[in-house]
């Protein structure tokens, strides 16, 4: 029987592929350009000190954005990350104060984070509570716990071993930055090269179809949130060590920053779509804007305007690209 041409058309594939490639990397390219321009025009921007500072300033957001990406890709939502950061920090600091053991402190923080995440997951996956409300509720409750545990007071940290997390340098890079980098690596692989990642996208794209295809949707959901909680707690502990204290009112509004970074990076709130590279860029854009505005001494009132416009500019660009895609 006659063989079947896969592309039954005159249009040469390469053209399409080139465009696809261009689209795939439009975001990174755009950022590269932005970076170059800033490096050329803004003094002190392109200095080791500043670039490292920039990366440090988005380390926490970056880490959490990795798991938030999975969360959004599976068509969910997590508002509780800010509170979890605060609680994990406070708890860690308190355990450290009592026991003096770094291991216990870190263990407690991470454990709490995992629990909170799993809790969210169970509420959403099994009890079918709307993700927005569920995580809003945990956000409130966990913040409350942080205040109650610390009586609203910052909990001091003296253990140098613990503080080392925050400012130890490895090959000239602060540990937090390296950890964030590791997260991007790990979750990038998880997303693109494992069943876990593919199934995450699947339940985001069409939960019912995924379920009928044998994906254990509920279990997967819980795991995603559990990971989210774990990584967030880690971020919280790192923050605590950076500011040598667990502060109950730390990281308020953090959730919105993280989600914005993801969406900026092309993660769809409708689920089913995610690109780790995009998220990285999204995070970097957010950090760069803050950084440059302060370098340029932009009046703090006008900073709102600038931040807003940059966000718009970024998504509009992404939008043009999407148009291109739709044409393809």
């Amino acid at each position: 029987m006659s063989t079947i041409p896969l592309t039954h058309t005159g249009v040469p594939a390469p053209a399409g592929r080139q465009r696809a490639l261009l689209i795939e990397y439009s975001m990174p390219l755009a950022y590269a350009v932005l970076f170059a321009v800033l490096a050329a025009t803004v003094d002190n921007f392109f200095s080791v000190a500043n670039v490292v500072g920039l990366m440090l300033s988005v380390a926490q957001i970056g880490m959490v954005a990795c798991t938030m990406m999975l969360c959004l890709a599976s068509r969910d939502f997590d508002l509780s990350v800010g509170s979890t950061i605060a609680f994990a920090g406070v708890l860690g600091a308190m355990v450290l104060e009592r026991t003096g053991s770094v291991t216990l402190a870190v263990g407690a923080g991470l454990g709490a984070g995992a629990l909170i995440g799993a809790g969210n997951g169970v509420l959403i996956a099994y009890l079918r509570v709307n993700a927005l409300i569920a995580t809003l509720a945990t956000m409130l409750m966990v913040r409350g716990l942080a205040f109650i545990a610390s009586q609203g007071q910052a909990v001091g940290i003296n253990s140098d071993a613990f503080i080392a997390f925050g400012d130890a340098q490895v090959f000239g890079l602060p540990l937090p930055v390296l950890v964030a980098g590791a997260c991007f690596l790990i979750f990038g692989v998880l997303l693109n090269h494992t069943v876990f990642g593919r199934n995450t996208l699947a339940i985001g794209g069409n939960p019912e179809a995924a379920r009928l295809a044998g994906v254990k949707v509920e279990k997967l959901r819980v795991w995603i949130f559990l990971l989210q909680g774990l990584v967030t707690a880690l971020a919280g502990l790192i923050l605590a060590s950076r500011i040598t204290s667990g502060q109950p009112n730390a990281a308020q509004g953090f959730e919105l920053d993280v989600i914005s970074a993801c969406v900026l990076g092309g993660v769809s709130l409708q689920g089913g779509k995610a690109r780790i590279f995009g998220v990285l860029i999204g995070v970097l854009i957010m950090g760069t804007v803050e950084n440059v505005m302060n370098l340029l001494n932009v009046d703090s009132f006008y900073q709102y305007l600038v931040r807003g416009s940059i966000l718009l500019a970024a998504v509009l660009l992404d939008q043009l690209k999407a148009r291109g895609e739709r044409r393809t």
Partner: protein
Amino acid sequence: MSAYLQFDQVSKHFPGVIALGGVSFEAHAGTVHGLLGENGAGKSTLLKILGGQYRPDGGRLLLDGREVRFGSASDAIAAGVSIIHQELQYVPELTVAENVLLGRMPTRMGFLDKGAANKLVSERFAKIGVDLDPNARLADLSIAQRQMVEICKAVMQDAQVIAFDEPTSSLSHRETEILFRLVRDLRAEGRTLIYISHRLEELYALCDACTIFRDGRKVATHPVMADVPRDRLISDMVGRELSDIYDYRERELGAERLTVCGMADGCDFSVRAGEVLGFFGLVGAGRSELMRQMYGADKRAPGTVVLDGAQVAMGGPSAAISAGIVLCPEDRKEQGILAQSSVAENINISCRRHALLGGVFLRHAREAALADEFIARLRIKTPSREQEIRLLSGGNQQKVILARWLAEPGLKVLVLDEPTRGIDVGAKNDIYRIIHEVAARGCCVIVVSSELPEVLGISDRVAVMRGGRIVGQLARADADEQAVLRLALPDTNNDSDNADITSRRTA
């Protein structure tokens, strides 16, 4: 009588795809013009152009001799063109009446006039012979019922040109008849009707003329449908001869392999190794429900499934799949495709678990190879395996979903719910062959279908359901349309049905 609707060199390109390469034909008022063609031939694209959803890259569209250019669906509607799309386009949360009158709700003093709306709709329903509660939410209806709502929606726009894109693909016998009656009435009223279907009987039963597409080009237009021999149609369409599309072969059946009991009363059945068991029934007969239950698709399912003498744990789809039981669901859009994912992803989603590195990491090369293999075997028309499945034609999407299940290595029981919905004759033939291959491997195959000839054509045994129970099982030898329908239909007004059936069979 001059042609009311004319397509002149209409073309449409998508990246990597020429959907339409300059198509010309005309349809006359007061006739039903059939469109045939393989999956991906360009039929729906043509209708989307007619409906103002796409703009053609080239060519002209003429209504009553005047050229028209539609910028949007509303333009087309305004010009008296309405389309019943292949992919149903309804609003789940709104009521039947609200869906039917979407965009044209009657108002009094600026406020919705629900009374008038319901009256309007139920009157028309009565006239057409559809019995649906105008206040029912679409989400609560079966696909068949949703399809009927879509049809009424289009018809009630009282357009001069009405195009049907595979309207019967999710209808069963009864609605199909209502539809036929409706189409004939519309023709009598002098409308210009376009009718796309892959079911040749229907085309013969309804169409006055027909045009055949292949790969975005017109192959032929036949002014008088009745004169065209069936084989000619098929060879025009698929570009090769097809003697018997079912190509059923007598085989030695093995011992009983699958036993299903206690799902619902009167629903026990069993299948022998290598046997193809067909399930027929009217809409809502309970076939899909039964299959989903045995698959564990719905929670809290009673009953037991025994496979090869061992009882299968009812732990939801994943459990069923690892036991070797797979179900290809009836509702492609809602239960089948991962719309934004690639063809390859859609094929590999389930079976990749056998091909993992260390049980965790994907083997991209192997998955790609598997995808390409099935793209070739099922003649799936796509620029590449990386194409998002939503961009494929309806039938090709269906093929991808089938591939997902045929690719299952540990396959023991293959359950297909309306597997050839929207699939062209050639591809049906491919699928039937694969079904028999699978059966020949000793697997049990269960095919739920509302297309009677299909059920009769491929099954070793036919089970008939009515009102949620299996009301009879017929060996292939005793299974003919009369016998099956007698079981499937409620005892009332049988003769009218049979009359219609015979008319369909002679085709």
